[in-house]
Each structure stands twice: as structure tokens, then as C-alpha cells.
């Protein structure tokens, strides 16, 4: 195990060491809310960050396992490709934004626009998510054990949204959908994997009504009027 200390090393030095490693276990001490920590990793390394991080932590993550013991700022695991990013506290806005794959786990709350434009990542939030979460989401799964803020899933394409608590409001073209056995099985698996205690049967599923993203010939007049 290698210990890196942001109290004595620069952010660039720490990130270079993490990005240069092909394997191994790292601990990062004294993060003090530093931005872009452990971003751009593309090897199966394990990084444990001892404290709160700032913006874009573990951005573009590929293969790596990043664990933050604290809160994270804006853009946690933005554009994650694979691997796992876990935060014991809460995450700022746009957690898991545009994520293509992998798993993002937030044990506390995630703020506004969680999973915005997500494309295949799975995001599990132990608490609440803020407004406009899963905006224009295209793939993957957003699992929320708490409540969701206003306009959940606005202009959503094909992601699946599971919320255990209340939803303040659904965004355009987002509707509640039947939760089937395959969804319960999927939820049970993910919840067990992230060690969160919740009954899959307590969740509701939301997704796209698919009324927005295909052009309908009946709307041609409205289109012409808008041009």
C-alpha cells in the first residue's frame, strides 16, 4: 500500500502517481476538498481518499476503484467509463454526469442533476437526489433510496430510474412504469453489492414515455410554426 499526502505533495504529483500506476493500493491523506483528485485513472488500482474532495473527483474513471471517506463536490465520477467510485458522505451537483459504465455509490445525498445525461453507468444514492436528476439520461440505472427533487428524468431517453421515496415531480416525457420481476432481481443484486439495506419491493420505477425523441408526422405543423 502506498500512502500519498496532499499536505506535503502537490495535487499534480499525487494524480501523476495514481495515473502512472498499473496496479496497487493507494491511500490519499489530507485531500482538504482538492479538485480533480484521482481523475483520469485507467488501470485497476484501488484508491482510498481519507477526507472530503472538491470538484470532479475520479472523473473519467476506467477500471479503478476509488473510495472517498467524506463528501465530494461537483461532478463526482463525471463521465465514468467503468470501475467503482464510492463516497461515504454526500455528493455535489452532477454526480455521475454522462457516465458510460461502471458504478457510482453515494451513501449520503446527491445534489442537483445527479446522473445528467448518463449513458450506461449505474448510480446508487443512499439519500436524496436534487432537482433535474437524470436529465436527458440515455442509459444505465439510477437507484435512489431517499426522495427525488423536481423534474426527475426530464427529456429522458432510455435509463431506468428507481426511487424508494417521494418524487417532487417528473420532468417532460418521464413516467412511472411497472416494476417487474427482472427489475426486483436487478435491484436486489445492486443493493446487496453496495451493502445498502432496502427492500426492492419498496421502489417505484420511472422511465421514458418515448413521446419526445421520435418525431411524429402529426407534429409537422407545430414544427413549421416554430421555424
Amino acid at each position, binding site marked *: 500500500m502506498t500512502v500519498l499526502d496532499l499536505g506535503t505533495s502537490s495535487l499534480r504529483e499525487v494524480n501523476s502517481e495514481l495515473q502512472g500506476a498499473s496496479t496497487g493500493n493507494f491511500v490519499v491523506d489530507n485531500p*482538504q*476538498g*482538492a*479538485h480533480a483528485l484521482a481523475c483520469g485513472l485507467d488501470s485497476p488500482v484501488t484508491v482510498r481518499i481519507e*477526507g*472530503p474532495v*472538491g*470538484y470532479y473527483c475520479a472523473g473519467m474513471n476506467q477500471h479503478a476503484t476509488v473510495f472517498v471517506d467524506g*463528501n465530494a*463536490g*461537483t461532478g463526482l465520477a463525471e463521465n465514468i467509463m467503468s470501475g467503482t467510485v464510492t463516497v461515504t*458522505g*454526500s455528493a*455535489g*451537483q452532477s454526480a455521475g454526469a454522462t457516465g458510460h459504465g461502471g458504478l457510482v455509490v453515494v451513501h449520503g*445525498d446527491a*445534489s*442537483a442533476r445527479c446522473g445528467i445525461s448518463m449513458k450506461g453507468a449505474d448510480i446508487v444514492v443512499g439519500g436524496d437526489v*436534487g*432537482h433535474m436528476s437524470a436529465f436527458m439520461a440515455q442509459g444505465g440505472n439510477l437507484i435512489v433510496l431517499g426522495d427525488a*427533487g423536481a423534474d426527475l428524468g426530464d427529456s429522458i431517453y432510455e435509463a431506468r430510474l428507481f426511487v424508494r421515496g417521494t418524487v417532487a415531480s417528473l420532468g417532460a416525457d418521464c413516467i412511472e412504469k411497472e416494476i417487474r420481476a427482472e427489475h426486483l432481481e436487478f435491484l436486489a443484486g445492486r443493493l446487496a453489492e453496495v451493502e445498502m439495506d432496502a427492500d426492492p419491493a419498496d421502489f417505484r420505477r420511472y422511465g421514458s414515455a418515448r413521446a419526445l425523441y421520435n418525431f411524429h408526422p402529426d407534429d409537422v405543423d407545430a414544427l413549421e410554426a416554430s421555424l
Partner: protein
Amino acid sequence: MCGIVGLFLKTERHQHELGRLTALMLEQMRDRGPDSAGFAIYGDDRDDRTRLTVLAEDVDVDWGKVCGRLSENLESEVSHRTILDHAVIETQAAGSDARRWIIDHVPEVTVLGFGHAIELYKAVGDPKLVAERYGLASRSGTHAIAHTRMATESAVTTGGSHPFSTGEDTCLVHNGSLSNHNLLREVLESKGVSFQTDNDTEVAAGYVAWRLTEGDSLEEALGRGIDDLDGFYTFCVGTRDGFAVVRDPIACKPAVMAETDDWVAMASEYRAIAQLPDVHHAAVWEPDPARIFAWSRA
């Protein structure tokens, strides 16, 4: 971009080091606003006198003479001290009368703010140096708000720097940009509000000041602002005995808040809050859009 910080002390425990903590927070926000900075610090609150912070930018002012004339006019004792190009004028007369007199009779200076508890400093330049120049770190007090500016809507000038006074013991800092400030400025001018710059934030400050004079509470004024101010904003507002934070309904501009038994803090980024004592035990959250968070000693 801009960076804002606010620190409100709920207990006396850290009042002796309010300035030092605020300076640490401000320094962390340098990257967000390297072109100018300002801070408002509240302390030494006394009902029986008002302080006015006055800026004399690039002009020599004989403060003794100004205060003599002011004293004569107000029929009240007036004293002053200066810190570089800022002067803090103290009087037992009504602050609004003193302010009006200075604006009318000493046009080469700018009254940055006035009240029983507030002092307000701002300048162009590296925020760390601005804080050092005006001695922020050595100040004690009850609460402070501060700002680092990256100008987008108007020129890099001291006048365009934050905080902007919104009335007695009240001021405002802003991260964001307003899109309807020119129209709103005209509307407010027609209601008698005067402006000293073409800055968008000054319009927001003028708006809040106007609503307060119309009888709104601070929370009502900010609530009405959600309908009337168009654009992006995170505002932090300081009042005589408290402070408030509000974000626009989209809430693209960042803000993070934290609270312990001893203090409440807000900042554009967590790394500013990370400087505070006992932060590891603080509750930390991002303020919801279009919701007013307010603390008061009262």
C-alpha cells in the same frame, strides 16, 4: 466565475479570529476571482453610533476637513480613521443622513456602506493581497462575507467589486450574472433608487434595498427577487445580526454550506470551508434552488 464566502458565528468561541478564518476562506477562492476582492465584516455593534465606510479611490481627501464639515452639518460629533484609501467615519447622528450628506457634498468619494456593525472594504487586485492590505486577518467580529471577482458583466474596477451595500448594515455578494439588469435598473431608477456603476450585482443590491424600504423582510425581499431577477446567481447577504443565502431556480452556480454548533458557513467551493475549525463534525450540504437559507442572532 467569482468566489463567495460567508461565515456567521453562532457563539462567541471564534469571534476573536473571525477575520483570520474569513481570510483563509477568501484565499481559497482566489482562483475563482483573481481580479478584485472585497469583504464586509460585522462586529463591535453599538446602537449609539453609526460607522460609514467611505472609499476615496485615486483622490486625496482631507478626511479631517470632511469630518469637520459633516459634524457641523449633523450637529453631532464625528470621528474617523483611515486604512489606505478607505476611511471609517463614526458618528452618533443618523447614518442615512450622514451618507446622504457625503454623497451630496463630497462627490469624489464613494460611500461603500454604513451601519451599527458593518465595515466594508474592496479593491482591485489579488484577493490575498487585498485581504492583507486592509488587515482582514486581525479583525474580530460576529460574521463576515467576502468575494473574489472574475468580471464578466462590467469592467474590473473597485466600484464593480463586491460586496454591494443594500442599506443600513446590509450588503450582498454575488456569483453569477444577471440578464435583465439593464431593464431592472431603469425600473428601479424610476422608483428613486440610485446607482453608482453599470454593474449587474449593484442592481440586485439596489433591488433588495428597495424592497426592504418598501417594508419587506429580508426573506420576503429575496423571495420576491426569485421572480424579478433573471439570470444566474448565488447570493450571500449579510445583515446586522445574520446572513442569508439564496440560489436561482436552476442553481448552476455552485454553493456549499456547512454548520456546527459554533458557526454556519457558505462558500462557492468546499475547500474554503475546509479551513474552518471542527469542520469534520460539520453538517455539509448544497443549498436547494430558490430556497432562502437564513440565520439570525435574534
